[in-house]
């Protein structure tokens, strides 16, 4: 996960179709590597599973938390790749634990979820990147603060982006939900008969996965809402136009696949049967006939039915609405602005404002570079503000150590600063060390053992 820093820089720099392929294929190589490793090595699978799970949860949450802060459409999508790798990782981690714990159901659900998500991610992510590419070609900018109201000009791109966004948020009836549901099922499966600490890891991953879902929702309502909805924030010359059908047709084809997996997940799950079997085979005494347990396929079929049912229900409600409102007068007027008659294009939410409350909560975790001239005086002359989210890990791992070293010696002077709270802090640090050191040492041995086994 700390090795991700190239990704958000590479994506905005690359042309859109390359980004699509990059996220679709390139970063999956890492996943493939992990999968191959699991197949090759013979080791303590449970420990390995926890390590994968831990890294995956962290990178998933971290990726999406940073993604929300981005104002560049492609950087935003790029951080989402990190998030999705996290989700895939949770699946694989679970599967690995399943192998270690001799639980075929857990292993199957974990690996199937993870692998299906690999496929899903490459579908909706490339669709998102293609849409972002269309937007870029129409507006020549990727800064979402400058866009707005594009749905009027580019209805197809907007719809495709919306559907892909729903899919990436893992919402039914799209494919993202199927794979996430498999992983959820795996997690709840994992809750059965365990001792507290592994249970805790499961709950933590559950928490992580839910949080990722909620954050993704926040992120994509922001991205879609600010880019495509509302009134235009800026006049583009020439005016944005819809992409040509040549571009749209492959995108619709991708959409068809996304919907297909969402509605008929059973088919795709059966296709995954063989690769998953390669993993479940590592469990001694596991049934070799079908890798996907019977009830897992039944579950997934349920999802498909529910998805179809929901589409039908929504259609029905909409149909009734159309019937009911068809005869009644529907007038068109401006958005309610409390009777103000002047220009209102600045009077709508910007991306920065939309996520500010979130940013305030997340600020301690990230280094956000804020430049502003605050409004001062009774009659202010001017004010200005700009924020730049910066990847804190990148900063800490690459930039900070050098600076830290310089100040290292000078640091000790601050210890004796006369603030009683700091003395209490030293006390806490000491207590914590006393408790943790034996613990850490123990675990170090465990880790060394584990590495030896490799």
């Amino acid at each position, binding site marked *: 996960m700390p090795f991700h820093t190239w990704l958000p820089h590479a994506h905005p720099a690359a042309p859109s179709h390359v980004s699509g392929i990059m996220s679709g294929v390139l970063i999956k190589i890492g996943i493939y590597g992990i999968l191959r490793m699991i197949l090759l090595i013979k080791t303590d699978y449970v420990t390995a599973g926890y390590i994968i799970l831990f890294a995956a949860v962290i990178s998933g949450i971290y990726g999406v938390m940073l993604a929300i802060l981005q104002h560049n459409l492609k950087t935003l999508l790029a951080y989402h790749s990190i998030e999705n790798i996290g989700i895939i990782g949770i699946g694989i981690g679970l599967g690995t634990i399943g192998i270690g714990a001799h639980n075929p159901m857990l292993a199957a659900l974990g690996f199937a979820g993870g692998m299906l998500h690999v496929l899903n991610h490459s579908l909706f992510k490339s669709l998102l990147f293609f849409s972002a590419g269309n937007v870029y070609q129409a507006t020549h900018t990727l800064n979402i603060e400058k866009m707005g109201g594009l749905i009027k000009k580019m209805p197809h791109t907007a719809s495709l982006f919306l559907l892909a966004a729903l899919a990436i948020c893992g919402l039914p009836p799209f494919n993202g939900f199927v794979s996430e549901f498999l992983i959820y099922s795996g997690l709840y499966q994992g809750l059965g008969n365990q001792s507290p600490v592994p249970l805790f890891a499961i709950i933590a991953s559950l928490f992580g996965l839910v949080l990722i879902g909620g954050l993704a929702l926040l992120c994509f309502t922001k991205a879609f809402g600010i880019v495509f909805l509302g009134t235009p924030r800026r006049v583009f010359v020439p005016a944005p136009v819809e992409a040509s059908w040549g571009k749209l047709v492959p995108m619709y084809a991708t959409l068809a696949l996304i919907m297909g997996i969402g509605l008929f997940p059973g088919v795709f799950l059966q296709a995954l049967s063989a690769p998953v079997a390669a993993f479940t085979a590592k469990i001694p005494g596991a049934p070799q006939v079908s890798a996907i347990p019977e009830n897992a396929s039944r579950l997934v079929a349920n999802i498909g039915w529910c998805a179809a049912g929901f589409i039908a229900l929504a259609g029905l409600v909409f149909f009734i609405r159309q019937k009911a409102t068809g005869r009644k007068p529907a007038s068109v007027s401006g958005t309610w602005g*409390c*009777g103000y*008659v002047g220009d209102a294009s*600045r009077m709508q939410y910007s991306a920065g404002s939309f996520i500010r409350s979130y940013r305030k909560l997340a600020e301690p975790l990230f280094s956000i570079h804020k430049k502003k001239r605050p409004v001062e005086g009774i009659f202010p002359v*001017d004010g200005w503000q700009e924020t730049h989210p910066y990847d804190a890990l990148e900063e800490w791992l690459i930039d900070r150590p050098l600076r830290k070293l310089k100040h290292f010696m000078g640091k000790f002077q601050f210890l004796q600063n006369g603030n009683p709270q700091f003395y209490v802090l030293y006390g806490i640090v000491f207590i914590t060390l006393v408790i943790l050191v034996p613990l850490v040492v123990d675990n170090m041995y465990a880790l060394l053992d584990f590495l030896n086994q490799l």
Partner: protein
Amino acid sequence: MDNLIIKNHETVPLASIPVLEYDKFLAQNTVLLAEERRHCVQYYGFLQSGMVQLLCCIADDMHGTILVSSALVGKKQILPSFTAHRPAFHKFEREIHENFGIAYADHPWLKPVRYPFDRARPQNDIANYPFFQIGSEELHEVGVGPIHAGVIEPGHFRFVCNGEQILHLEIQLGFQHRGVERLFLAKQHLLQRTVLAESIAGDTVAGHSVAFANLWESLCGFRAGAGLQFARTLALELERIAVHTGDLSALCTDVAYQLGSAVFGRLRTPLINYFQIWCGNRFAKGLIRAGGSHFPFNESLAEQLLEMLDAFEPDFDAMCEETFTLPTVLARFEKTGVVTHDQAVAIGTVGMAARVSGLNRDIRASHPHDFYPVLQHQPIIKHHGDVYSRAQLRRREIKQSIGYIRHLLKHMPLDSATPEPLGQPAPESLTLSLTEGWRGEICHCAVTGVRGELVHYKVKDPSFHNWLALALAVRNNEISDFPVCNKSFDLSYCGHDL
């Protein structure tokens, strides 16, 4: 110092007001405002033989005097501004700019005050009002009004926000510019003028009509009897209690505290119903007349008033105790919408809004009229300047006013106060009348011509000063706290728009 020193409600000949060079006029008045105890109560211009005579009235709270000076300038001149030195003058100069086209070279905020259909630049309207903008794509603006969700008066509030945080608020009023001051000249009959004064602001009927009645009596050389003064003081204090109670209810509504909202709302009703018993109108319309009263106060009214207050007080105390100890309410009130002492002094706030920021500004104490010299009023001062202080101030002022009313009723003067015919207004004079309404100081100012006819009438509601305080108070607050901040000031739209 070259100025005329007058008392509250004093009529002086126009000729006795010193006319200064503009530069000296500027220097003198801006220096006067350097001290906290002085503030500008009125600064306006009127036409005098083709020139504009600027008249600046500065009140000295320590000595109970008003310092008047003036200057003659041409229309559409370019002048240096007072505001560049003392922001407290900004609204007055904007008004002068709007009325006479006088341009100010260094005024930092020279924007329209009202909708100027009768002003120098009639083409100004809300759609081209130059709102302050912050050049950042990450911020957004929120425009509230002129039509608000509650049935209240029109005004446009433009917020520059960063998410939930308000960075800047600009308030644009003037939707209700009815031409009140011109109507005072157009309507010749005293009754018409009295009714006009009563209609300046619907929630300050007693305040404005007392200010007008005192002014007119002074102009006509009439000295009101004790009974009349007694009734006016009583009406002012009753109005204060009633509106403050209503405001406490509204404050509770804005933090969604239903119990407080309902109970305080109920408590307000007997108060305004008492006016109904007294004068036939719940808002005290028709109660106060120059030269007399149609509704003299008597023993049975006093009895009913005491009865009503006896019923009011225990309920009010209990509800206040409940409200001001409820953590969820306190969390919303405390440290919300702070106006610092320095800000309050700089922009020259008056009345309640000044008293919560540690500024001792109360006409009842500094320029007492009617029965206030007897009451020896001691203003209640708070220092934090937040919503909590404004709510607490209301609570304490209500208690104080009830105490005053009880005290007054014990020493009720019994002289008949039937209307007497007033004399003719003094010719070529100036009269200035200051009254402490519930919201703060009300200033009425009249200038008469050669035959004693009104040539200029000027009204200033406390809201005129205090709207800017609201704009400063909400900076860096949450936008969802704006309604409660707004209500804590409870400023008048029409009193400002005139």
